[in-house]
């Protein structure tokens, strides 16, 4: 019996539309309306400026450890912008710009990184999951959300983010495999920022691309220039609409770079060279998009000041809030307050000497509502 070729040679495509200087490949122009281009730009700018501000707040001890996004604005904004409000976004822990675009108020993100429970609480109208720390765990959840959409017969699409390092985790492979087998409306967006803390991509995988991992699961995979917001947008738009149309999941690898620290507890000079960082700074997604919009005369005068003012006002609102209330730690451990927690809560309330009484409705064991809480039995 002969050996036969079962699959023709797999092809992995790379999509790039804007070059580093902001020149457009007009044959690939996704023809995004001007208002949408402006929305993308504003979101990227807000992401960048807030990131810078948050680093200062962290250094001053006003918020805790967080994962900055500098350099990844195009990957995040270009992807999330292709979702409808009714679609789901499932972040990892480094998608601040995408979260802002999805409607997380700035002060909520600050609250999150200052340790308040409210910070992780999406608004009732938001189909967004909170951030998650164990790498890649969110990906099976995304498939579950997509299965639920299929189950109910609604047309929601789920977009899940993860990093390059996350593609080594079992949960990544299990999730992409499930999505393929069940043909669910999911889009996996891998932010390949070249590093997983100090581990470079080549120590993470021997594959030439991350996109090609999709092919093993029988779903389309595409690599895009992740610093090119037009390419990310075009690729994700295609994937989201394919998912919505019932044609299954897609894996998109955004090739980008983390220009800053892994988290505010990291010093990248220990593991990578200044030359490497400088080379990627020349491919900065924001510089490139600015140049493009300037040529199209779509840059808005005074936008930076406006964005900074928005941030400053949010920081002010955030700082006006008192310290986190210790008794909130008993809330939402369970959907109701079980007897053993109720006892501990009373003990702590007593020890704090603030005379805090058990919250109203405690007798029927309901947890106290938080600001803007929705009932979750949707």
């Amino acid at each position, binding site marked *: 019996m002969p050996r036969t070729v079962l699959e023709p040679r797999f092809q992995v495509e790379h999509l790039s539309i804007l070059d580093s200087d902001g020149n457009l490949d007009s044959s690939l122009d996704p023809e995004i309306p001007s208002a949408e281009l402006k929305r993308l730009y504003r979101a990227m700018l807000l992401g960048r400026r807030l990131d810078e501000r948050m680093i200062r707040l962290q250094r001053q001890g006003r918020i805790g450890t967080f994962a900055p996004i500098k350099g990844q604005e195009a990957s995040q904004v270009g992807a999330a912008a292709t979702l409808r409000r009714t679609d789901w976004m499932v972040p990892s822990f480094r998608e601040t710009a995408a979260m802002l675009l999805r409607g997380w108020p700035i002060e909520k993100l600050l609250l999150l990184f200052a340790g308040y*429970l*409210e*910070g*992780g*609480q*999406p608004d*009732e109208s938001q189909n967004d*999951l*909170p951030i*998650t*720390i*164990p790498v890649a*765990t969110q*990906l*099976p*959840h*995304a*498939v*579950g*959300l*997509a*299965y*639920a*959409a299929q*189950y*109910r017969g609604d047309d929601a699409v789920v977009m899940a983010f993860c990093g390059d390092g996350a593609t080594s985790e*079992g*949960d990544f492979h*299990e*999730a992409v*495999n*499930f999505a393929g*087998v069940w043909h669910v409306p999911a889009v996996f967006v891998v932010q390949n920022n070249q590093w997983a803390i100090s581990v470079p991509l080549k120590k993470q995988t021997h594959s030439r691309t991350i996109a090609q991992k999709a092919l093993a699961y029988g779903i389309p995979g595409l690599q895009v220039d992740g610093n090119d917001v037009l390419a990310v947008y075009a690729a994700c738009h295609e994937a989201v609409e394919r998912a919505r149309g019932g044609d299954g999941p897609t894996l998109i690898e955004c090739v980008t770079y983390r220009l800053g620290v892994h988290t505010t507890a990291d010093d990248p000079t220990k593991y990578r060279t200044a030359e490497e960082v400088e080379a990627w700074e020349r491919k900065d997604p924001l510089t490139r998009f600015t140049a493009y919009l300037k040529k199209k005369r779509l840059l808005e005068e005074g936008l930076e000041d406006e964005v900074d003012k928005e941030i400053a006002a949010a920081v002010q609102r955030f700082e006006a809030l008192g310290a986190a209330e210790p008794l909130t730690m008993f*809330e*939402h*451990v*369970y*959907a*109701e307050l*079980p*007897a*053993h927690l109720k006892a501990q809560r009373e003990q702590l309330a007593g020890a704090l000497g603030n005379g805090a009484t058990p919250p109203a409705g405690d007798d029927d064991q309901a*947890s106290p*509502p*938080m600001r803007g*809480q*929705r009932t*979750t*039995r*949707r």
Partner: protein
Amino acid sequence: MAVMTYREALNLALREEMKRDDRVFVIGEEVGLYEGAYKVTQGLLKEFGPRRIVDTPIAESGFTGVGIGAAMTGLRPVVEMMTFNFALLALDQIVNSAAKMNYMSGGQFNVPIVIRGPGGPAHQLAAQHSQSMEVYFYHVPGLKVVRPSTPMDAKGLLKSAIRDDNPVIFIESETLYNIKGEVPEDPDFVIPLGQAAVRREGADVTVVAYMGMMYRAMEAAEELEKDGISVEIVDPRTLMPMDTETILASVRKTHRVVVVEAGAGFAGMGSEIAAEIQEAAFDDLDAPVERVTGVPAPMPYARNLEKAKTPSKERIVEAIRRVCYQDGNGSH
């Protein structure tokens, strides 16, 4: 009431809840065409179709995570673990996601999921297949943990677990699937989570035990009855939240306690119950709390070793005699 097996009672609970609520679906390995490795999902694929009885790839973390995601939208998945030993592959999903999502989302997303399947010592299934898995879960805030010992409890507690708004770990037993008992056929019959059952009333000593150990304690109690020792047996049924009130009420009556568990004793259920009792009812005790536990070693394959590892009726009898100061030792 109808007489049925533990397995049939679980099956009935699933069927009733699936009929009652379209949000309930079953997901796991071999749950469909094969009707479950232990046939708990018998007939369900035929009745409810592949949308609601979902066979998955072999990936415990994956399908548990999928269940969690679906539960966050308000569906009520019942995730079957072929055996609970394999839930270890999903431990991160269960501990870091299912248990904490409600908390981390400020109450926005609760996770009404049931993760069920058999656990505990079985018949010659050996080290990796015969473990008391509840210890890995009841320590985790946010999870509820159920171990139903009778067919009636299997039905009533599974229905409550499915209706509960929290993630519930529901560990059945390979050795109990065929036991028979009376089960209410009323589709509205449920047993609330967090309520212990007094299986046998007695005056002299309280034995706390569940699943196979509860039945072994029953045998011990019958033997001791002949010697005039009256044993009360309390079955916690739900390990988290634990019905300490019922246990304490029994202790205040008998003043002596033996806790029996199949797994290793160190930091086990027995340690916790002993601690709860001495914190709340120290002055009621007439003897130290005794624990009868499995040998802290992997489960052997050989039948005679397997038997020696797990608490026997004889060891339970001895412990009861000791706390009653009737072990012929006379030194107390």
